[in-house]
């Protein structure tokens, strides 16, 4: 199946509060990052995908089925909520066994399934006998991940799983997710920690104010950004002279020249880039490099959500 999750004109409102507003997108198998600032609609989308919310209008399909009131579909989805709350008085094995039983695993197999899930989540077995209440934040995140893996789902949905983890913990969590992907599990992960997602995710869905701003691979999003990005960085022999030359052609909104480095803000990026060779005609300044200054996902995200 080429499409894992597909939304068509999907909206979800909490009374008068906006959750998602008329979004359409499709997410292929793989690791997909759900990116957006607080209140963007990430958690709302996740609740819709995991069948906890009903769409106000539009359509959402996961594996070609509607998630609401669909236990059959939920057996293919594992979910790791954002909230940190876990049953403090229980040991992870006991809790996971109960959840595995609820997921349809025969009781006799629940212990081995719980141990396997904790192993995949890389929670050291010396901690298995301790109560969850005594766990650190990182250990709790692993237990949360383990419970999502219990019924060996094809898709795992993780809501801000790296919140509160230190850099080492984030890196290891990312490594666990990559390993799961190698085993064939697809992952939908929401986060505002963008630089981790850049290295982790093949595709992204960028949300803000309940709207889908962009979706696709990093490359696709960057290319679409390049088309309308107005900030261009140029390295040349004489920045001031080149700026003066471009000013004559009337293509700039502004510029910043510093010896060999010139940053220009152009009126129409697409026209500017298309006519770049012509613009240089008659210009005595040697140009070494031209590129969009901010190409990282973080800067794309910042620009999009401004």
């Amino acid at each position, binding site marked *: 199946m080429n499409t894992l999750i597909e939304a068509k004109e999907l909206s979800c409102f909490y009374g008068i509060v906006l959750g998602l507003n008329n979004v359409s997108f499709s997410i292929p198998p793989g690791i997909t990052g759900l990116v957006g600032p607080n209140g963007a609609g990430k958690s709302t989308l996740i*609740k819709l995908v995991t069948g*906890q*919310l009903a769409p106000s209008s539009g359509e959402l399909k996961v594996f070609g089925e509607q998630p609401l009131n669909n*236990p*059959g579909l939920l057996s293919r989805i594992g979910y790791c909520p954002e*909230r940190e709350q*876990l049953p403090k008085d229980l040991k992870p094995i006991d809790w996971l*066994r*109960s959840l595995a039983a609820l*997921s349809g695993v025969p009781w006799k197999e629940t212990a081995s399934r719980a141990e396997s899930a904790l192993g995949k989540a890389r929670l050291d077995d010396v901690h298995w006998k301790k109560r969850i209440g005594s766990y650190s934040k990182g250990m709790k995140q692993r237990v949360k991940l383990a419970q999502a893996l219990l019924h060996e789902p094809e898709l795992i949905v993780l809501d801000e799983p790296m919140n509160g983890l230190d850099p080492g913990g984030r890196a290891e969590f990312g490594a666990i997710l990559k390993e799961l992907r190698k085993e064939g599990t697809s992952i939908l992960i929401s986060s505002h920690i963008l630089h981790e997602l850049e290295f982790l995710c093949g595709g992204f869905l960028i949300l803000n104010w309940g709207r889908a701003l962009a979706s696709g691979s990093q490359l696709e999003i960057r290319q679409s950004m390049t088309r309308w990005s107005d900030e261009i960085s140029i390295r040349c022999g004489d920045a001031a002279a080149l700026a003066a030359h471009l000013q004559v052609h009337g293509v700039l909104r502004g510029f910043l020249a510093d010896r060999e480095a010139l940053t220009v803000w152009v009126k129409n990026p697409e026209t500017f880039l298309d006519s770049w060779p012509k613009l240089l005609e008659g210009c005595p300044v040697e140009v070494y490099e031209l590129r969009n200054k901010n190409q990282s996902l973080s800067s794309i995200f910042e620009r999009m959500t401004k």
Partner: protein
Amino acid sequence: MVELRLREMAKRSTLLAAATAAAVVYIVMELALDGDDHQRFWALAIEVFVLKILLIFALTKGGEALRSDLKDGTIEYLWTRPVGKAKLYLGFWLGSLLGLLPVLLGSLLSISWIGVSMGAIDGFAELALLWIGAFLVAVGAGSLSLAFSALTSKFVVFGIFYFALVEMVLSRLPTGVRSMALRSHASDLLEPLKFGDPVSLELFGSALLGFLAIGVAAVLIGALRFSRARYSIGGEKEG
């Protein structure tokens, strides 16, 4: 929930709760009893324990686990399992009844021990009737409490309000409306014990039906409300 409850029941703290309930009930009964006054024993066992303490306890305790899961947000781990919400609710129902068991068993053991030693309980039928009556009250009130907790986070206040209005007031009305109260059915079932009268099969059957009707209605209302519960924006995940 059931597995968790069973595991919890094997814990030291649960056994401690049962032992504490047994000790408290034993001490109070011993202090309140006057020699071999059988009528006083039955009044304490039925009027005070079954119809008041047990009823209030079950009405305020039965919905605790569900409400705690809804309040903490841990309900999300259950909602996203491949199992229907009605089935989940039944799990909570069984779990809540199991949660009432330690205190119920501890208290009943003490009451039975005292009743048998003083001769107030002189046959298996009396003992069985006391236990059946107490269990039915616990199941009925526990089911109501769970339904209240599916409806509102103020389920304890609601339970006490229900006890005051329905159980204490409506049960005393000499009309059919009294059958809405668990107390009226429990009284029908257990009152004959006070006077050493035999329980008629007809009375037993009608009391059983009364408990069943209240219990089933509570479970249905609770399950219906729970199955419609959704994630809602804000601090507490309750629909």
